[in-house]
């Protein structure tokens, strides 16, 4: 960008067409934000399906009989804590502080893994008790909604692992910082989806 364009960009009231391209950081962040919102819309379809089918238990176990609230509370706290540690991690990246980044992102990974283990054990015990996804429409909708969220969390963990490896090999380059930044957005968005899951699926169980 030329000096003249840079000078124009700082003046309020300059038409958008004259301001020149936005920095990559802004464009990448905004694009990823749009992706996240479309991901939320996918979840909204699954939430709608679950709400409609939650009563269709086909004489099988109902939501109130299946779910253990204490277990869900621990899962929620794991995810919430990992969201905050991820925030501390992105602040550390902002400061280009490598030990703090490894520390906070490592804790984020462990908390995410804790959450997935708890969810996996819950699913396994449900299937073992004969309440698998094929039993009723309610259970199909449950496994699809909660399973899709779990799949997102697993992919997030793989992404985090790759990002940590990139930090080891490439260091604090703008490209790596940008990807970490998008990962942070993804992780916070998953936590927001989980609020919907624990409210509608687990606490709203009748």
């Amino acid at each position, binding site marked *: 960008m030329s000096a003249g364009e840079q000078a124009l960009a700082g003046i309020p009231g300059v038409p958008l067409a004259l301001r020149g391209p936005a920095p990559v950081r802004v464009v990448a962040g905004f694009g990823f934000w749009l992706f996240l919102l479309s991901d939320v819309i996918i979840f909204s379809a699954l939430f709608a399906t679950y709400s409609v089918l939650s009563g269709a238990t086909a004489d099988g176990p109902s939501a109130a009989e299946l779910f253990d609230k204490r277990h869900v509370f621990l899962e929620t706290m794991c995810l919430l804590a990992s969201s905050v540690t991820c925030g501390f991690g992105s602040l550390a990246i902002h400061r280009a502080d490598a030990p703090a980044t490894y520390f906070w992102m490592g804790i984020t990974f462990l908390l995410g893994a804790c959450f997935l283990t708890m969810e996996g054990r819950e699913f396994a015990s449900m299937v073992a008790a004969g309440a698998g996804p094929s039993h009723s429409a309610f259970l199909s909708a449950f496994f699809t909604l909660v399973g899709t969220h779990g799949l997102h969390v697993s992919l997030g963990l793989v992404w985090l692992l790759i990002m940590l490896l990139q930090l080891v090999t490439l260091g604090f380059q703008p490209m790596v910082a940008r990807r970490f930044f998008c990962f942070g957005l993804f992780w916070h968005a998953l936590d927001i989806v989980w609020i*919907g899951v624990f409210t509608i699926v687990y606490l709203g169980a009748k």
Partner: protein
Amino acid sequence: MQVRAQGEAPGVHPREQHGARSYLIGLLFAVALTLASFWASTTSFVYAPGVPVLLGTLAIAQMGVHVAFFLHISTAPDQANNFLALAFGVFVTALVVFGSMMIMSHLNHNMMPMDELMKMQR
């Protein structure tokens, strides 16, 4: 200067003070709201038919806390694009969820009970 004129990416901390403190305030609110939701779902203190409304309110409040304190989305001028995108996402989500629930409950309401249907087919 350049960045401000172009709008800001979501999740960016506008000032240094928006750092760790913002996450800690968010954590405090989020934990309080989560505890309130779990309490509301088990208590007999609240009038039972009102519990789903209370749960919904607490969930929306907590989502708001996450958006403001963790994602750092605000209505500031340089966040206009992010906020508009969020508003559209919320709009479509509400349309899909409440629309489906309304249509399906009307369908259920207007459909013949299953045993009557069986009798007719015989």
